[in-house]
């Protein structure tokens, strides 16, 4: 029995939520952005803005040049997370085989359930009706239906916005020669470039290429490419109940021009290390490998290095000191950076590990536990490190610095 896979993609998601929240933004081009007055980028463009050529990840200045009437709106993560939770609670009633692909994209395997609704098309209509009732008229979704994930996503993309598209297996072979390889989820720009260089431009080209060659060039991934080229994608829908284990915990931050000197960037880094430590403690993990990285300019490559500590930690100060040690070892010592980032990997569960031997370590552990209790009760900004207070403007200037960014279901 062929699978019935649905891909549900919210239309211009963040912009639609903002238009739902504020009717005066409806029907006009808006761009959701981090900081409307700062050098920032468009996170999401409304349908009206897209008609002017405004796209996600475009700098605000460029978007305003394309669409002078564009209204920039500061994004509010809580709104999007709450809306996602609401639409997921609806979708969970349709099937437990639901994979949360991103904050605004979901895959569902409805092979068993679709017949109860009179087929997948009727099921999709029912979902969209429920969305309209529960989320409001502005927040819509496009649904793609196919026998596998890659083609369900592809057909959803071709039916945007607010559409429903179904691709039957018998229709796939005739489409393969029309679909450029870059249009398929799972084929990134780098792979696309490599395939293009050897004359593989469409899925049909990919399907005709020998499996041996693809495996030789791309390893196991080459087998996936061969399947996709033949209109197949065996990738299963991974249910939300099967949470992927955490491999690393990290934060990075793009810096506005007034915070780009290395001294101020390190203050921002101090705050990021605290956030990483706090998240590790919340998750119940400790980690040994610390990665520190930065960018010199918005378009420049990322420079970074990692070290493995002789012990595991969940302490922001230890992580910060490790970053400083990495920075000293690096070959580049810039005066200005545009982005800083830190992550901790090589994780292990904290539970069951022996306690610290040194008094100072035990003191730090008690201090972290006390600050965690204060933050749990009064909020993340209720207590911060002294270094962070040296520069009062950080919470205002660095968008999202004080926000919790985790979301889980």
């Amino acid at each position, binding site marked *: 029995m062929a699978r019935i896979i649905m891909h549900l993609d919210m239309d211009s998601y963040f912009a639609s*939520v903002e238009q*739902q*929240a*504020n*009717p*005066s933004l409806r029907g006009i081009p808006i761009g959701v952005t981090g900081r409307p007055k700062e050098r920032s980028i468009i996170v999401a463009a409304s349908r009206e803005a897209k008609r002017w050529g405004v796209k996600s990840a475009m700098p605000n200045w460029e978007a305003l040049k394309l669409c002078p009437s564009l209204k920039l709106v500061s994004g509010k993560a*809580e*709104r999007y*997370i*709450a*809306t996602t939770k609401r639409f997921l609670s609806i979708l969970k009633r349709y099937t437990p085989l639901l994979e949360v692909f991103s904050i605004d994209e979901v895959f569902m395997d409805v092979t068993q359930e679709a017949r109860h609704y009179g087929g997948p098309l009727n099921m999709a209509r029912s979902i969209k009706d429920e969305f309209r009732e529960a989320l*409001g008229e502005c927040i819509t979704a496009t649904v793609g239906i196919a026998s596998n994930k890659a083609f369900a996503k592809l057909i959803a993309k071709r039916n945007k916005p607010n559409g429903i598209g179904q691709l039957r297996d018998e229709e796939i072979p005739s489409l393969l020669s029309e679909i450029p390889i870059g249009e398929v989820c799972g084929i990134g720009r780098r792979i696309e470039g490599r395939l293009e260089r050897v004359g593989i431009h469409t899925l049909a080209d990919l399907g005709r290429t020998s499996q041996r060659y693809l495996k030789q060039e791309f390893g196991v991934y080459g087998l996936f490419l061969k399947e996709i080229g033949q209109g197949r994608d065996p990738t299963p829908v991974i249910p939300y109940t099967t949470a992927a284990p955490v491999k690393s915990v990290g934060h990075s931050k793009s810096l506005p021009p007034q915070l780009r000197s290395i001294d101020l960037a390190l203050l921002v880094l101090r705050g990021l290390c605290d956030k990483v430590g706090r998240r590790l403690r919340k998750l119940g993990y400790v980690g040994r490998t610390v990665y520190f990285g930065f960018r010199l300019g918005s378009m420049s490559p990322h420079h970074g290095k990692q070290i493995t500590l002789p012990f595991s930690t969940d302490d922001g100060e230890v992580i910060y000191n490790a970053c400083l040690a990495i920075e000293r070892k690096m070959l580049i010592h810039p005066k200005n950076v545009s982005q800083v980032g830190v992550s901790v990997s090589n994780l292990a569960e904290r539970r069951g590990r022996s306690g610290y031997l040194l008094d100072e370590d035990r003191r730090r552990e008690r201090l972290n536990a006390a600050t965690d209790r204060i*933050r*749990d*009760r*009064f*909020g993340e900004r*209720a207590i911060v490190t002294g270094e962070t207070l040296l520069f009062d403007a950080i919470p205002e200037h660095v968008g999202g610095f004080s926000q*919790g960014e985790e979301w889980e279901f």
Partner: protein
Amino acid sequence: MYQPVSEPIDAYVIYKRGATHPILRAFRWGRRRFDITSTNLVYPEREGETLFLCYAVSSGRNQFQLRLNTNRSLWTLEAIDVEG
């Protein structure tokens, strides 16, 4: 464009059976009463242990952002976008 206010207000609310949040019908700000014509979005916000419910509502052509402190049952008018 929203203008910040951050003032406590009196709210007229219905706790409807089965609803996920209290339904705001009207509020009094200063001497004026505003009847809610549509609730556009409701979402939670947490500050430590305190759960706030944020309401984006319309009263006629005016838009309002309000916040309910669920621990203390206090309503605040956070911002307004008033026509004219």
